[in-house]
């Protein structure tokens, strides 16, 4: 054990170098499918068609760069689905942000009958796989459709209904994250305001919310991305193209019976990816922590 000498250091210099380089080599190999996938998407977006990673022109030679795939931008359909996606994303940001910061404030700051049970429930629901409830939620939405004023906006096959389902299923995560932010907040200012006779709601809105803006921003970015990229829930609870969001629209393009124009779809995908990548580049560290702390784990 204790036979390390300086000799070994120099003799195994090459081995040590290998030991240094090996992790990098393995890591680069590990990310290659991700890099390849993205590389294909970018190349395909700007080419006539692709074979493997090579852009191919009409005669079958390498080459054939084109902007033709972006012609979909003049189709009103794309702007309608973009708007739907945007509404869903903003709905998620506002809905989850508002509802969960209210509940989290009460859970963090007030003592009331049922507090502990609700908090445990939040944790259980957070671990609970909500996708298993989609079948039953179909019936809930169908029922909501039948209620006169509400059904029109929040029933089956409406953007509001989809948003409502997505907000609800994201609440356990939102409440849990926000409660963490509230718990870390000193409560001196709040106490002063309360002693001065301000109402709880005013304190929450005028003092607390401004103080936890960073936390709200983190939750907002996370929710914007999940609303923007949502596929399964919009796909399940909408029919046809009227209320499709962008991922559902893309899915329809892919599974159309006509020969699929992969390069045009790639361009639509790229168009949808732009905001995702912008957030990704500018908020990396925050995203890493939110995904670790809260994510359902996807798969």
């Amino acid at each position, binding site marked *: 054990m204790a036979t390390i000498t300086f000799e070994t250091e120099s003799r195994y210099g090459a081995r040590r170098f290998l030991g240094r380089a090996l992790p990098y080599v393995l890591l680069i190999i590990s990310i290659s499918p991700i890099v390849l996938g993205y590389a294909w998407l970018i190349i395909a977006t700007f080419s006539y068609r692709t074979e493997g990673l090579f852009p191919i022109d009409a005669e079958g030679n390498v080459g054939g760069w084109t902007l033709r795939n972006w012609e979909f931008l003049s189709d009103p359909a794309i702007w309608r689905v973009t708007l739907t996606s945007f509404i869903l994303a903003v709905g998620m940001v506002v809905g989850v942000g508002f509802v969960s910061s209210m509940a989290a404030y009460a859970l963090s700051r007030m003592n009331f009958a049922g507090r502990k049970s609700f908090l445990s429930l939040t944790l259980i629901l957070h671990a609970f796989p909500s996708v298993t409830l989609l*079948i039953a939620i179909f019936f809930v939405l169908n029922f909501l459709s039948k209620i006169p004023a509400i059904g029109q906006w929040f029933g089956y096959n409406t953007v509001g209904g989809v948003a409502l389902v997505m907000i609800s299923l994201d609440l356990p995560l939102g409440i849990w994250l926000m409660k963490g932010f509230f718990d870390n907040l000193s409560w001196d200012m709040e106490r002063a305001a309360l002693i001065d006779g301000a109402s709880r709601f005013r304190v*929450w809105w005028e003092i607390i919310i401004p103080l936890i803006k960073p936390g709200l921003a983190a939750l907002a970015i996370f929710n914007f991305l999940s609303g923007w990229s949502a596929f399964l829930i919009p796909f399940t609870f909408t029919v046809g193209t009227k209320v499709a969001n962008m991922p559902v629209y893309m899915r329809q393009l892919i599974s159309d019976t006509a020969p699929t124009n992969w390069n045009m779809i790639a361009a639509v995908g790229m168009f*949808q990816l732009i905001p995702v990548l912008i957030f990704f580049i500018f908020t990396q560290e925050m995203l890493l922590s939110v995904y670790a702390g809260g994510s359902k784990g996807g798969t």
Partner: protein
Amino acid sequence: MAEVITGSGPVKGQSPPSRWAQLKATLGAWGFMSPAVVLVLVFFFLPVIILFVISLTDLSSSNFSEPLTFINLENYTRLFKDKFFPKILGNTFFYVATTLSCFNVGMALVLALLTTHINRRAGFFFRLIWLLPRITPSVIYILMWRRISHQPPFGLINQLLAPFGVEPQYWLFEQPWLFVILVNGFVGASFGLILFSSAIEAIPKDLITAAKVDGASTWQIIRDITLPQIRWPLLFVTTYQTLSLLTSFEYILLLTEGGPGLYRTEVWALTAYKRALKTYFGHNQWGYGAAWGFVLVIIGIVMSIIYLRVFRFNELVQEPKIDVL
């Protein structure tokens, strides 16, 4: 941390609040809670009940308008007698076990060890790239994988392997399981990766330095120090991701829809979804699909409660900054 708040009894040095004040405080708190409570009731509780009730009926799109007919547990017996039940059960086990061991835990652990052993910034960079699949909208992510595994001359794999003399083929069609696992694994690995690497970075440096002074090899350090130190995150990720894998089906739905052929890559959660909501012929068997789904719900509830106990989530339930002025 460990202190647990019990009831809302009077606090030292304060006169006990009046009944009216107490009631007012509770009402105020529930006022804050009400939107969340309503949504949780409508979209978590009600659905669990509805799912159970429907699983006891023969509700389908052909008798939707008629009154409900209860057929007791017939859907459940039908489920077990289904010709494809053994196939689907086997698929589910295979899918969960393989993806979990190879990627969500295995790959995540290897990547966490690698990224914490290299330069800090470089490690962060690789972790970030691994987060990309999770953040990429699922439809686009699947589009990439479909092209990677596409038939010649379009597929990326064929082009890359051609110099090595590998016969070009339609990989997704020939090896559907390989790609179902890769697709899910590349998304799933980042969860464990992030948790494991922060756990590894939290290990006191002294421990590792001491081991190095004693002449321990890298492998010995990993086996005797790192792994025992991160056993809780390991256990957490394993159980948590088992449940996620068992119930998630979005990527399989997009990639293979359970095919190619009959039930080749169909898993339990996908069966429930397809039977109830997305059948090819528009004949939705809600009752039967609900029976498949309800089995998963039971597993989900039981496992979530186990987490709460095993991982002492109760201790996370901190004392509130209560209404004491």
